[in-house]
């Protein structure tokens, strides 16, 4: 039952005794060992530890103890989350000789406290710097919907493992779109919560001003259930979808779209009866500011290691980090001042509407042998440009839900739903409405 099983189904089966946690875990390990070879989403499997944890859950159940909400549910983590006793490499070779983590990342600790079991680390672009999950050290993660296509990144292993049905939910991180881009290309739910809402302790940093911890799931209910466990909070009441005012982002967010994506977004806007178009001011500058802040902070973070061990980096990552380290202070400060300016503008807009809609990516997944996308008529690198619509929305730190659209007659296409800070429940309400009407949900593999 394990492949494509939901969080809720697994937890219910373990709690009622329909299945043992050990049986679930053995099944999961078997799937990861035997079915991931073509996709390459996994970088390490915690075989012994996960079986021990599953055994303990079965013992607790047999002893009549009440089991917590996620008991026996396997999950995976992007390889930048600390797992006690394991070396966090952040997809690199240069950190391979670091000491093992002394404790779990806070989010992992909360999930384990709820009974969930971390079973694997998952592939990513080195140090999260990329949108493709093409990794010089751990290989390329392939899109489960078409193995010839990019899975998206940088949390590509996490998105692909859910899309392939290997794991019901996985952890990722999003600095410039690293959850939303792979969620869109792989056809799964992906949430970038409000900046600062989920703790980042124990998550290897990329750009402290923008990094957000988040996750992927195969169903909306699973995404929501695990979100509130990670947030250590009681679920907010979802407002009636009909009470929410929705606007569609225009201008920048309607340019460079493939016809397939344009049709898919139009269909959703039509269904939701969205009539207002919102123009964000200076979107190209918001993207530029995100780009520059990321480069400067990433470059600064890695400079000591770059001085000693530059040759151990993936060349593409290394050159970008070097360039970031060389940015003048005035450029970084201008970007941070612009962020302040942009925040004020966004907040004014969010006084008028509750939800903004935008495409997540300009096209379906590009092919691995032709990793380019068209921007302003030019063929440019997909690895650097798939975040065209996600990067400007990273800057204000708003919560964004990537919704997998159904019946698009294409490879997966994702939609960004954007809300005011800490209003994730608004996102869930609209997403549920789309799901209940057959317009959104995990895209099944053909």
């Amino acid at each position, binding site marked *: 039952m394990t492949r494509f099983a939901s969080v809720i189904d697994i937890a219910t089966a373990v709690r009622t005794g329909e299945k043992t946690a050990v049986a679930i875990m053995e099944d999961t390990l078997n799937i990861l060992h035997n079915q991931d070879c073509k996709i390459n989403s996994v970088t390490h499997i915690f075989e012994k530890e996960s079986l021990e944890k599953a055994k303990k859950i079965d013992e607790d159940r047999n002893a009549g103890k009440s089991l917590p909400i996620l008991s026996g549910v396997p999950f995976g983590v992007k390889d930048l989350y600390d797992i006690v006793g394991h070396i966090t490499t952040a997809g690199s070779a240069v950190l391979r000789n670091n000491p093992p983590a002394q404790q779990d990342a806070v989010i992992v600790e909360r999930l384990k406290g709820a009974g969930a079991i971390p079973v694997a680390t998952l592939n990513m672009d080195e140090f999260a710097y990329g949108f493709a999950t093409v990794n010089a050290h751990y290989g390329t993660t392939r899109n489960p919907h078409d193995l010839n296509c990019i899975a998206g990144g940088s949390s590509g292993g996490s998105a692909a493992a859910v899309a392939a049905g290997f794991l019901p939910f996985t952890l990722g991180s999003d600095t410039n779109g690293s959850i939303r881009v792979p969620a869109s290309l792989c056809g799964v739910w992906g949430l970038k919560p*409000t*900046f*600062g809402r989920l703790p980042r302790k124990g998550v290897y940093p990329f750009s402290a*001003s923008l990094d957000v911890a988040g996750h992927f799931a195969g169903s909306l209910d699973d995404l929501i259930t695990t979100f509130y466990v990670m947030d250590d909070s009681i679920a907010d009441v979802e407002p009636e979808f009909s009470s929410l005012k929705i606007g569609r982002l225009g201008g920048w967010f309607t340019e460079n779209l493939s016809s397939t994506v344009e049709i898919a977004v139009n269909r959703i806007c039509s269904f939701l009866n969205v009539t207002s178009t919102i123009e964000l001011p*200076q979107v*190209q*500058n918001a*993207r*530029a*500011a995100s*780009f*520059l802040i990321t*480069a400067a902070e990433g470059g600064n973070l890695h*400079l000591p290691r*770059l*001085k000693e061990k*530059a040759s151990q980096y993936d*060349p*593409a990552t*290394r*050159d*970008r980090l*070097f*360039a*970031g*380290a*060389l*940015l003048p202070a005035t*450029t970084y*400060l*201008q*970007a*941070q*001042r*612009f*962020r*302040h*300016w942009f*925040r*004020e503008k966004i907040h004014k807009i969010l006084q008028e509407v509750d939800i903004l809609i935008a495409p997540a990516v300009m096209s379906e997944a590009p092919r691995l042998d032709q990793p380019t996308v068209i921007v302003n008529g030019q063929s440019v690198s997909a690895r*650097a440009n798939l975040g065209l619509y996600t990067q400007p929305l990273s800057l*204000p*730190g*708003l919560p964004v839900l990537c919704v997998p659209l159904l019946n698009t007659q294409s490879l997966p296409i994702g939609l960004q739903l954007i809300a005011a*800070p*800490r209003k994730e429940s608004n996102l869930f309400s609209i997403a549920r409405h789309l799901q209940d009407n057959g317009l959104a949900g995990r895209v099944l593999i053909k």
Partner: protein
Amino acid sequence: MMEDKIIKNKSFSYIYVCSKNIGLDLHKYFLKGVLINTDILKGYTKLLESQPLSDIDDEPAYEYIP
């Protein structure tokens, strides 16, 4: 020989000086890739420099709250 010629190029000299300023002994082998990425960042910098910002209201967002 070819590498030496490249380093004499003005853009490469700029990179070389900047890297020296932060104590980075940038190997010649990396220069070309760094220059490509520096040019990309320069494009974004130019965009932002054209943005009017208030001296008073638009402080850098150090402790950012969304």
